[in-house]
């Protein structure tokens, strides 16, 4: 609640800041300071301290899980701004506006992690989506960016329609929008609620890019300015997953046996399509887009297996996946083009960057001693409580993911640079990247650092 309100205020502040502050680094600093404040306020709320005492009238509910998730997102966002702030300037002249939109999105993120009414969920999703449409198209001269924006907008609006139809059915069955479980027998078995459930499932699947509702993802991620792709693919996706879990854990827990097989099916299709398609990509950026679909398949296991393991796993996933992906995209913004060949021989020229990237990719692939491994471990463990075959499919797909993640590692470490140009990275950037990588490793060694927040 603290963070939600303050982030909106910060958004307004940054929106206006461009009028008063001409130096971009000050704006950047302001944004970072704002984020730090948000983070502090969020932690304060974790300890029970609220900035405003507001009667939310059952619209919002910030429980511990939501707050921890927010903390993770804010921390990721902090690293994101540190690593990619520079790249944001290259997109266009409206630096402060981009930041303002980011903070508005932030408010949306907090809405979807802490909603208690489907209305807030809907509003939150829209608060996230509408600025994202704009950020996707923010590279106005770039036709790919334009195209991505329109595709994202049209498909996103379409899915909003599905979401609303689902909510309408839900309302028809229940008479309210409260996102809690209903034990009313006329509600539990009603086909209206069932239809609403399925439509909500489709709409949420769309938002978190779960197959077969993922089609927008590769095109949009590819077309959007890299720095915003990074944001979309990580923090936003994580928040929406939190919302997804919350919706099906609370509201539809009694229909568990109905939707669980469908989610399992979606997991399989998502993993298959995401991983298999990623194998054949020629551009690292597009490969990452598909890989984010594949990772979504893994995160969907958290929905599938609503249990302690899966929720802990989602937290770890949020942290490790976000940090690793943010790091990779941050490096990508420095590259000439996004072909795999661009990474050839990077290890010899930029050992720190290469090592960090290697750790990020290892984490994404789920190699032990990285956060990504433990995250996957939790997910598989959670799934194993129900179905062995699903766990087996998941790990096989994790192995397939090695196919494409390791292409970059191979390029960096095992191939020689044949081109004369090689990307230059500022020293501070390299060190920051390494710190990010070390955090990813730390997550794999001491996950208690994050999971502890849930219980203490």
């Amino acid at each position: 609640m603290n963070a939600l309100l303050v982030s909106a205020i910060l958004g307004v502040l940054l929106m206006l800041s461009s009028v008063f502050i001409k130096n971009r680094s000050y704006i950047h600093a302001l944004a970072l300071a704002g984020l730090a404040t948000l983070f502090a306020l969020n932690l304060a709320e974790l300890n029970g301290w609220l900035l405003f005492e507001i009667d939310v009238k059952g619209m919002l509910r910030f429980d511990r899980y939501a707050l921890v998730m927010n903390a993770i997102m804010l921390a990721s966002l902090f690293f994101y701004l540190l690593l990619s702030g520079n790249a944001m300037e290259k997109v266009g002249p409206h630096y402060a506006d981009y930041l303002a939109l980011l903070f508005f999105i932030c408010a949306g993120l907090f809405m979807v992690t802490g909603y208690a009414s489907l209305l807030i969920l809907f509003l939150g999703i829209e608060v996230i989506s509408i600025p994202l449409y704009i950020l996707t198209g923010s590279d106005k001269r770039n036709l790919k960016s334009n195209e991505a924006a329109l595709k994202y907008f049209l498909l996103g609006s379409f899915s909003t329609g599905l979401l609303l139809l689902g909510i309408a059915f839900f309302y028809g069955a229940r008479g309210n929008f409260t996102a809690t479980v209903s034990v009313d027998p006329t509600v539990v078995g009603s086909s209206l609620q069932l239809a609403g459930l399925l439509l909500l499932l489709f709409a949420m699947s769309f938002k978190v890019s779960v197959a077969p509702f993922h089609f927008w993802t590769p095109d949009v991620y590819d077309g959007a300015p890299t720095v915003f792709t990074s944001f979309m693919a990580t923090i936003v996706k994580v928040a929406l997953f939190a919302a997804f879990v919350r919706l099906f854990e609370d509201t539809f827990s009694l229909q568990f046996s109905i939707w669980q097989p469908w989610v399992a099916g979606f997991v399989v299709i998502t993993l298959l399509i995401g991983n298999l398609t990623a194998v054949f990509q020629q551009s690292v950026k597009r490969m990452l887009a598909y890989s984010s679909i594949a990772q979504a398949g893994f995160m969907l296991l958290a929905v599938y297996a609503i249990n302690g393991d899966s929720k802990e796993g989602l937290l770890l996933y949020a942290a490790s996946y976000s940090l690793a992906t943010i790091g990779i995209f941050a490096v990508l913004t420095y590259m000439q083009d996004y072909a795999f060949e661009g990474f050839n021989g990077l290890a010899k020229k930029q050992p720190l960057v290469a090592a960090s990237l290697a750790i990020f990719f290892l984490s994404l692939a789920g190699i032990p001693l990285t956060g990504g491994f433990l995250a996957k471990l939790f997910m598989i463990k959670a799934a194993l409580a129900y179905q062995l075959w699903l766990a087996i499919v998941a790990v096989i797909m994790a192995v397939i993911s090695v196919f494409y993640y390791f292409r970059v590692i191979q390029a960096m470490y095992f191939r020689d640079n044949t081109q004369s140009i090689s990307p230059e990275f500022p020293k501070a950037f390299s060190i920051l990247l390494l710190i990010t990588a070390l955090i990813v490793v730390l997550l794999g060694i001491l996950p208690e650092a994050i999971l502890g927040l849930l219980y203490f």
Partner: protein
Amino acid sequence: MSISAILFWVLSVAALFSALMVVTSRNPIHSVIWLIVTFFAISGHYILLNAQFLAVVNIIVYAGAIMVLFLFVIMLMNLNKESEPARHRWLQLAGGVSGGALLLVLVAALKDTELKSQQSLLLEGHTGLIKTLGQELFSTYVIPFELSSILFLSAMVGAVLIGKKD
């Protein structure tokens, strides 16, 4: 057949027909016009359902503001002729069939649904009155109401950001 039933049928047929025309019109301008007709028909339904305020808002906001915006953009782009080439035949067919299938499936699924009240009693109650709505909006729904301001802010920033020529 009561007057309300007659009105219902008339409005329904009008809505469906005009909606179909939106989809099938070759000329974008016609589509816009038909959509406005649809909105009017829906507003009529709102009145039948005792949602007077929404009916009015629907006409002002949708039929008025939003559709004018559409019209304006279409005019701006000089799309006011039957310029759109037809889609691939089978794609159209597949689209129609899929949409139809969706309709059929949903209707079939919900055909026997247990509704809490079978009949909609027309012209009864005061739910749709502006006063009731206003009171509720600024008490229970004050949080979403305030939060939607963020939406507008960001939409505003975004529209400026995108629309500005630099």
